[in-house]
């Protein structure tokens, strides 16, 4: 009688996060700052993306101790990242009894042909996408939440906007007569494409990620129509993380009120420095296995 770990329960948790900000945190202290600022969830990882970029090397799952200490320290949901295709890292995260797994291109991919088969897991997964095909392939593999990828660790919003716009154009280009063709192009069952066509949006909650560094960036993505935002390096690489965290939360709620956005944007100190996309050695967003 009791239904557990079903897709609608996995997707249901994401529904509770809507309108919110999910923040990358590297320790208990940062997790508490994020929670106090009003984050709806935290992403526990050892190095925020800007540091992974700066330090290089293989980026892997975080230490379970670190993940579980954060879980104990906050009451909001806790997420952690596994490498693309690394189903054992995902199993370990699941055994940490946290709330969500991010199969993330920010970490170094473990399999360049396939993503994790997410259906057998009891924990829900969030995955990144640059367009509708990528989103539907991840949903078909069992992802219960999607985030547009953007370009993590850059503090540059341009890729987040690009990926969201691409996704919207793909959705708008669906017609009653091209669903089979699109399903073939995207390599997914036609039912998934049909659901998107009928709803005019993805069938799961859709956040933006990758490059959101200011309250205005968060509000920009919200005005474009996303369900909420991930802020990675933007908080804890800024001059005053606490102020920045609170400002981004307020901006996400008041995304369509310029007067409120003006107030929350005042006196925040330096935002993270940021990078031009052309100067990057590695574009994380290009990481899709088997594409």
């Amino acid at each position, binding site marked *: 009688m*009791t239904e557990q770990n079903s897709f609608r329960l996995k997707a249901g948790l994401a*529904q*509770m996060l809507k*309108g919110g900000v999910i923040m990358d945190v590297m320790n208990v202290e940062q997790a508490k700052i994020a929670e106090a600022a009003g984050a709806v*969830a935290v992403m526990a990882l050892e190095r925020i993306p800007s540091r992974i970029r700066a330090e290089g090397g293989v980026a892997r799952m975080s230490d379970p101790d670190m993940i579980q200490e954060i*879980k104990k320290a906050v*009451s*909001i949901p806790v997420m952690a990242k596994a490498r693309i295709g690394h189903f054992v890292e995902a199993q370990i995260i699941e055994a940490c009894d946290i709330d969500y797994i991010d199969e993330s291109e920010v970490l170094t991919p473990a399999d360049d042909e396939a993503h994790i088969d997410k259906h057998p897991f009891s924990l829900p997964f969030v995955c990144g996408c640059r367009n509708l095909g990528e989103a539907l392939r991840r949903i078909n593999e069992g992802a219960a939440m999607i985030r547009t990828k953007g370009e993590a660790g850059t503090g540059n919003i341009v890729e987040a906007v690009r990926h969201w716009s691409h996704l919207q154009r793909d959705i708008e280009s669906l017609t009653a007569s091209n669903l089979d063709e699109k399903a073939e192009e995207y390599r997914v069952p036609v039912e998934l494409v049909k659901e998107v066509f009928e709803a005019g949006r993805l069938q799961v909650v859709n956040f933006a990620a990758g490059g959101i560094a200011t309250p205005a960036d968060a509000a920009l993505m919200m005005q474009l129509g996303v369900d909420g935002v991930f802020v990675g390096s933007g908080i804890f690489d800024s001059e005053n993380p606490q102020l920045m965290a609170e400002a981004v939360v307020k901006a996400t*709620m008041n995304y369509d009120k310029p007067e409120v956005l003006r107030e929350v944007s005042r006196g925040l100190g330096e935002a993270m420095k940021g990078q031009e996309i052309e100067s990057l050695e590695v574009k994380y967003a290009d990481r899709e296995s088997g594409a």
Partner: protein
Amino acid sequence: MLPKKLGVLCLQGSFAEHLQCCVDLGLETVEVRDIESLQSVSHLIIPGGESTTMLKLLKAYGMWEVLEGRMKEARDLKIFGTCAGAILCSYLGLDVEVNRNGFGAQQASMIVALESEKFKNLQGTFIRAPRFTNCGKNVETLATLNGEAVLIEQDNFLAASFHPELLDETRVHAYFFNQS
């Protein structure tokens, strides 16, 4: 008395799902996002979401003060809270102790049949759900799970530890708006 008017608190969480339940019932509904809209309603639904986030935003924009005034002094507002909304009810005077995430983390989330005289065949979606412990003597229990209260009512409060809005279950919404 204010004219009867239904609102959904639309700061964060499952407010779109609650708005859809209200549309399905044919009820005109206000999206409550500021003090002005909060003051205009007689019935307020507080959705599921993260209670710490909602409380932070309510306080930042002066809405918490209005809610406290209307629930504790004027007593001219009725609230229906689901999950995080139920936790906020307990801060506003609903006489119950709440154990946040009392049903466990995400892997303990479930959809399950509930026992209820009032709502036959009621199902509950529990997602990182709070547990009601030590209900006060004026609290009436409308539904239980294995004998434990999960839908409760007291004075101007109706609170569910589960999410009727996720299963297109509109009977509880109808009860909330029509009973008074």
